């Protein structure tokens, strides 16, 4: 207690965050020797930064941007190019220079954010989406045609350096900045723009300044993530920043619940890990079983939605209905699948988990969006009060 008084909770939380990242870094590199897993963790951290920063533009300020991979790419190339050009001529050692490089990547992406943000201010919704999409593609195609930057062969960043600690520190800073904004009254002006631009402006919110800030800050974090990525892999190539990456980040934001930082973090991890699970977990499934299970998932979604919309019983009964809505269709599906499998009704083709990676990803997206159209977390955020309320539900009821 006295310690928190001397240093202030803020300083302590910063120290804890840094320590946690460093420990995670050391733990990973000593316990997990497999470079594949370390890279997975690293990329998951980068995607957290990307989705939380896009959430600032898309979810909090309500500006529909689908060119986030463009900012990510600007950061990666700016950091990579400057690192190759200046690293040998300056006195800093690598981890320290990596921070400089992150700042360069963030700065370059922020400028790009300003360039896209300013003219796009008059555009809304679909039109803004088209412009940002165009920006992402233009950046990629211009780079593709720069021979000095390696063109389609890609670009080698000679000062390769992997730092899980910095990746997660960046993610934490990004989350903290967005959370701070929402905790202060300033954040309300961003949310007001999302809710109603005309009313926000009539209440004195400066639309231009606020929207451009969202674009610049969001882009800067994406650029910083790009800088880390470039130094981690040591090789960047325009194909790594295609439209699909933008869409993946956007999907993370939407799946988590637009505006919810918690949702963005959670969805980034989930969506990034799911396709990789197909590589890690080994399982095989017959064609018959696959068809039966897919139909079962459909039935499950139907049953869950029916319970949500048409069942008004007491809470325990409703929970039971939800449980049955999941267990019955999946159980029946599994049984039917076994029967089809045994009698080889649908042929004996076998699918490996690796073949089904993106089928499963698509399925998860479909199921979540059908069951929870506002995303996993809706507009809600993680808070300790919420955790407490989970445990204290009964107590609260007695009081009420």
């Amino acid at each position: 207690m006295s310690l928190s008084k001397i240093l202030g909770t803020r300083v302590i939380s910063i120290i804890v965050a840094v320590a946690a990242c460093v420990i995670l870094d050391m733990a990973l590199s000593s316990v997990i020797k497999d470079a594949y897993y370390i890279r997975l963790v690293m990329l998951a951290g980068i995607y957290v930064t990307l989705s939380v920063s896009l959430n600032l533009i898309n979810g909090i300020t309500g500006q529909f941007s689908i060119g986030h991979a463009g900012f990510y790419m600007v950061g990666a190339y700016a950091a990579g190019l400057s690192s190759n050009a200046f690293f040998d001529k300056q006195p800093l050692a690598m981890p320290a220079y990596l921070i400089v490089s992150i700042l360069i990547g963030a700065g370059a992406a922020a400028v790009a954010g300003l360039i896209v943000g300013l003219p796009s201010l008059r555009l809304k919704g679909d039109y803004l989406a088209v412009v940002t999409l165009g920006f992402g593609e233009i950046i990629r195609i211009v780079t593709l045609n720069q021979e000095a930057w390696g063109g389609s062969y890609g670009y080698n960043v000679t000062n390769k350096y992997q730092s899980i600690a910095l990746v997660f520190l960046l993610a934490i800073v990004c989350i903290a900045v967005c959370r701070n904004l929402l905790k202060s009254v300033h954040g309300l002006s961003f949310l007001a723009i999302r809710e109603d631009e005309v009313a926000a402006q009539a209440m004195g919110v400066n639309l231009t300044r606020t929207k451009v800030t969202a674009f610049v800050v969001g882009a800067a974090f994406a650029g910083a993530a790009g800088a880390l990525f470039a130094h981690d892999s040591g090789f960047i190539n325009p194909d790594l920043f295609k439209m699909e990456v933008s869409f993946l980040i956007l999907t993370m934001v939407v799946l988590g619940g637009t505006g919810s930082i918690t949702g963005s973090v959670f969805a980034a991890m989930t969506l990034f890990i799911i396709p990789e699970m197909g590589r890690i977990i080994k399982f095989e499934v017959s064609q018959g079983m696959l068809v039966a299970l897919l139909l079962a998932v459909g039935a499950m979604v139907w049953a869950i939605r029916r319970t949500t919309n048409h069942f008004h019983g007491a809470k325990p009964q409703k929970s039971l209905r939800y449980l049955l809505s999941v267990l019955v269709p999946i159980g029946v599906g599994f049984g039917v699948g076994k029967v089809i499998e045994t009698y080889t009704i649908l042929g004996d083709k076998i699918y490996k988990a690796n073949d089904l990676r993106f089928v499963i990803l698509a399925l998860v997206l479909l199921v979540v969006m059908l069951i929870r159209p506002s995303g996993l977390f809706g507009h809600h955020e993680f808070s300790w009060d919420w955790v407490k309320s989970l445990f204290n539900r009964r107590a609260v009821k007695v009081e009420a």
Partner: protein
Amino acid sequence: MAVLSMEQVTIKFGGLTAVNEVTFDIEKGDLYGLIGPNGAGKTTCFNMITGVYTPTSGKVIYDGRDISGMPPNKIAEVGICRTFQNIRLFSALSALENVMVGAYLRHETSLLSGFLLSPRAIKETAEMRKRAMEFLSVVDLAEEAHSRAADLSYGKQRRLEIARAMATNPKLILLDEPAAGMNPQEKDELREVVLRIRDEFEKTVLLIEHDMKFVMNLCEKIVVLDHGEEIARGGPAEIRSNPKVIEAYLGEAV
């Protein structure tokens, strides 16, 4: 000196003259009514005063300076705030947060301190929350502070819009059909609120309203528009007996 002067304000949309050479002065402390049949150009007048539209010709003078053509956020800053005919609340935000957006106009800490959540930003946020709470209780919505704006009843949403506009600390407040869709009891309550805004908070009020009884009981000065032109001006008694007004708008004596 007049708080707001409309000087021969005209706006044309293509061939249509929506508002034609409208001229009136609002003095400090006035409770001014702007009435007229549908399509008379009342809301267009509001939109010109608040910077949504720029007049084709003429001037809107506020506090001695020409504000025609200024962007809406600047106009809110100089001290004019409004409510909307078709309610425009920030639906997903709570009632309290809605009012805090209004209070945000007078912020002093920088945006950077918001991103860093500096102690000053925390303090300012707390102050604004407190101030927003006070305005919520003025319109009798303190108990609904944490309800989502979209979940409030129609009458409450209208009052919440007034609280939000009040929170920007304007000198002149424009109410666009504040009583629309309210039942008689809600209208009485609204009347009290508007009078309090004028008397206790010393604001000047300009309001558009269709409910004649409400306007006649509340406003001290009234200007009547028809087809974008002023057809009458004066106190409620004069307006009530003005043959032009009766013909154009009322249809019969009120």
